[in-house]
């Protein structure tokens, strides 16, 4: 790929990610925040493609956009009317929050850009990683894989149990 095109596309997706993340945080309407989070997730998925982690990018789109974002939207709509004025959310601790925001970003960027230059490995990852992810999953990472699957099953059963609607006749169950 042409280097200039590559750079321009990277900066485009980086800008989409950062600005929509800022809009998630600074928008007062929860619905707008949720839809802006959609663009953040897509931007992050595009960055994963730049980092040659194509499988992770597809997983990001499927899990975050298809699952978590829909879940968050359901949460918004279950708890408020969609175009209610109540859907606006107030802020508190705005001064210490801004200080922490500026402090964290400033300190991290200062550290990244002033300490030293990174030394990338000679054997960087290139191309598609789907096959290597498959091998790693069933060789080195088979125990975490099984554990996380059981955790996910338990968490989803627990979530369905917690969020169920009570029948009026057995309140104390």
């Amino acid at each position, binding site marked *: 790929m042409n*280097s200039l095109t590559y750079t321009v596309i990277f900066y485009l997706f980086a800008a989409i990610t950062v600005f929509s993340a800022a809009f*998630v945080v600074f928008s007062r309407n929860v619905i707008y925040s949720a839809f802006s989070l959609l663009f953040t997730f897509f931007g992050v998925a595009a960055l994963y493609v730049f980092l040659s982690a194509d499988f992770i990018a597809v997983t990001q789109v499927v*899990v975050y956009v298809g699952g978590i974002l829909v879940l968050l939207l359901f949460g918004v709509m279950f708890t408020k009317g969609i175009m209610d004025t109540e859907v606006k959310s107030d802020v508190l601790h705005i001064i210490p*929050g801004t200080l922490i925001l500026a402090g964290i*970003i400033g300190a991290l960027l200062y550290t990244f850009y002033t300490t030293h230059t990174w030394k990338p490995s000679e054997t960087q990852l290139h191309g598609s990683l789907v096959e290597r992810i498959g091998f790693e999953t069933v060789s080195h990472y088979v125990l975490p894989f099984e554990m996380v699957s059981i955790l996910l099953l338990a968490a989803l059963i627990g979530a369905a149990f917690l969020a169920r609607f009570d029948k009026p006749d057995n309140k104390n169950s």
Partner: protein
Amino acid sequence: MEHLVPIGLNHYLTISAFLLGFGLFAVMTRKNAIVVLMGVELILNAANINFIAFSKYNGGMGGIMFSLFVIVIAAAEAAIALAIVINIFKIFKSVDVSSIDSMKE
């Protein structure tokens, strides 16, 4: 200007730092519990970008695999947290995290 052109590790770390800062800001300052959850998702995404960027420039598979597990944990966390938020709304008729101050009805 010369450090802008070849896309390196610092670019990804910069994006990740911004996402972490915005996520922390949302967790600290918003009163709506759902926006707080969105902030947590932003923080997890920032961590994932760091994992995958370091994994790419290091050449190992550890960061890639760890980011997969982070995505799974984030899905479980979102499901449980939304269930808890809906229960809180049923009891307190509000999702304002600064007004929920009792453990018992």
